[in-house]
């Protein structure tokens, strides 16, 4: 931006800017389709945040509907839902960050111990396989295990443990925190593992050879070389997830629990709440209020987490 500031100073330089524009107009033309798309898909909806402060009546139109101030927010926060969806969204995200990071680092360190390149490739592609599948297919996979006649009930609980009846998983809320965290790890650990593995193989082998000469054991090398050197990558990845703490994977919380009402207390998050309020209940006031709440707090969380990282280590900050 400093360059442009200088360019605008003085008429001589202004003339040069005009010449530049003559050369560069094609580059601007090339950007137009993309910018128009972002304008429609992102910026126009941003301006629609005002909808939350209106009592939307389609006969009056979106712009013509009456302003009602913070009424929609009052309704939202007076209900139990606001607390539940906020708690679920934040706690699940924190659990995902801890569980996925720990497993991914472990797997990538183990992967680094493997010598055969063919095996490394095989493990990598199998662990990444769940990442390629849509959440709808994942919900079918989970259903095959958790159905009333699913594998867990029919083979493990009544078969191996000899209990008469299985568990009706889709109506018991208490199991779902574990199921959701497990399914999320199953699906996404492969992705993180590949990122951390790439970071580990970037470490110079000199460190390990020197450590071996000094008689370091495997776990000592991991503790004092590998982990400190992949820390910047880990911090960046954790920061990216922390910034998304107010958002969640809609499919994971909508498809996998099969939209079952009995377990909303542990599966409802802000994203599913907004969707149900809008599509299933057509309650525009409530859903847009929850949406604004998510956008604004989510934005503050991103800025905040970035600010913290800038203070700790500037090179890891996103902006």
């Amino acid at each position, binding site marked *: 931006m400093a360059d442009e500031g200088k360019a605008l100073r003085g008429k001589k330089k202004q003339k040069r800017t005009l010449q530049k524009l003559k050369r560069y107009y094609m580059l601007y033309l090339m950007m137009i389709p993309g910018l128009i798309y972002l304008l429609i898909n992102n910026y126009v*909806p941003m301006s629609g945040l005002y909808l939350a402060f209106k009592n939307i009546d389609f006969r009056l139109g979106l712009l013509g509907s009456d302003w009602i101030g913070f009424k929609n927010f009052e309704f939202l926060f007076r209900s139990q839902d606001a607390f539940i969806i906020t708690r679920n969204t934040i706690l699940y995200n924190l659990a995902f960050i801890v569980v996925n990071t720990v497993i991914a680092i472990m797997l990538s360190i183990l992967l680094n111990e493997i*010598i055969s390149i063919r095996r490394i490739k095989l493990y990598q592609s199998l662990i990444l*396989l769940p990442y390629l599948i849509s959440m*709808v297919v994942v919900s079918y996979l989970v259903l095959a295990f958790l159905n009333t006649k699913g594998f867990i009930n029919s083979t493990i609980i009544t078969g191996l443990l000899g209990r008469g009846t299985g568990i009706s998983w889709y109506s018991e809320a208490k199991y779902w925190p574990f199921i959701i965290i497990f399914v999320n790890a199953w699906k996404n650990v492969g992705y993180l593992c590949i990122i951390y593995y790439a970071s580990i193989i970037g470490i110079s082998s000199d460190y390990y050879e020197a450590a071996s000469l000094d008689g370091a054991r495997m776990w000592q090398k991991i503790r004092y070389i590998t982990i400190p050197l992949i820390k910047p990558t880990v911090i960046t990845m954790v920061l990216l997830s922390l910034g998304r703490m107010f958002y969640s994977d809609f499919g994971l919380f909508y498809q996998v629990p099969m939209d079952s009402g009995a377990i909303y207390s542990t599966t409802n998050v802000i994203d599913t709440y907004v969707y149900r309020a809008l599509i299933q209940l057509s309650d525009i006031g409530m859903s847009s209020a929850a949406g604004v709440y998510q956008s604004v707090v989510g934005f503050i969380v991103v800025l905040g987490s970035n600010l913290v990282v800038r203070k700790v280590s500037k090179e890891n900050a996103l902006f």
Partner: protein
Amino acid sequence: MKKRAIIPNLILALTSILCLVPFLLLIASSFTDENALVLYGYSFFPKKLSLKAYQYIWQQGIVIVRAYGITVLVTILGTGVGLTITSMLSYPLSRKDLPFGKIFAFLVFFTMLFNGGLVPTYLMYVKYLHIKNTLLALIVPGLLVNSFFCMIMRSYFISNIPDAIIESAYIDGANEFKIFTKMVLPLSKPIMATIGLFLGVNYWNDWYNGLIYLTETKLFSIQNVLNRMISDAQFLASSNLGSTVNAGAIQLPATSTRMAIAVVTILPIFVAYPFFQKYFIKGITIGSVKG
């Protein structure tokens, strides 16, 4: 050296199996006889094998074929158009000498930090752009241009296209668009392949746009059919109004058919995966380098 790797090998092998096992259960149950499934439950080793689910899908073929066709069409169109727009937006942003380039880069980047959410987006697409129940609903909202992909591509251009060749081409009289198509793109095949692959997988797997913007089942992609089947096992039969096969057809094996359709959905990805996994894994590591 070799002895030490036993435990890592063991743990990684077990993890790999854990990743694969759910798919085996899905495939096994799709080949299980409906009555055995209801009586004894889902099992890796079916008590009674049956091909009825697949026969049934074959009979209801037209629904599946149409849904598949829509998925393929949407994936090709979305990936092609998306890749074109993304590269045409990312390249100018990578040019340090472009006046106001940083402002545009910020406009793209900002959409990753803040958004209007589902309600305004939905109302705009439905009430103003009238996208509901059109094929565009599966292509345009959310998926076509991804600002994250733009930033990745931009940083690839910055670090892989030397300023000198752009400058010398310009001095030789090429205009900026020609420089882009004749010099920059041929040098950028790896990033084009990577982003294209990611876009393609996103389109192939998408069910969200269909869930929100489609009520017309004729436009359902294969993921949407699958999504509908989970709550409505009769969907295949009920949506196949034009078919006359129904009268003498075998009775609907509801449970195994659902599983069989899920198998049919993931089959192309499983078949293609060995060929593109190398690029996919590489792409993930490119993506982790911040822009």
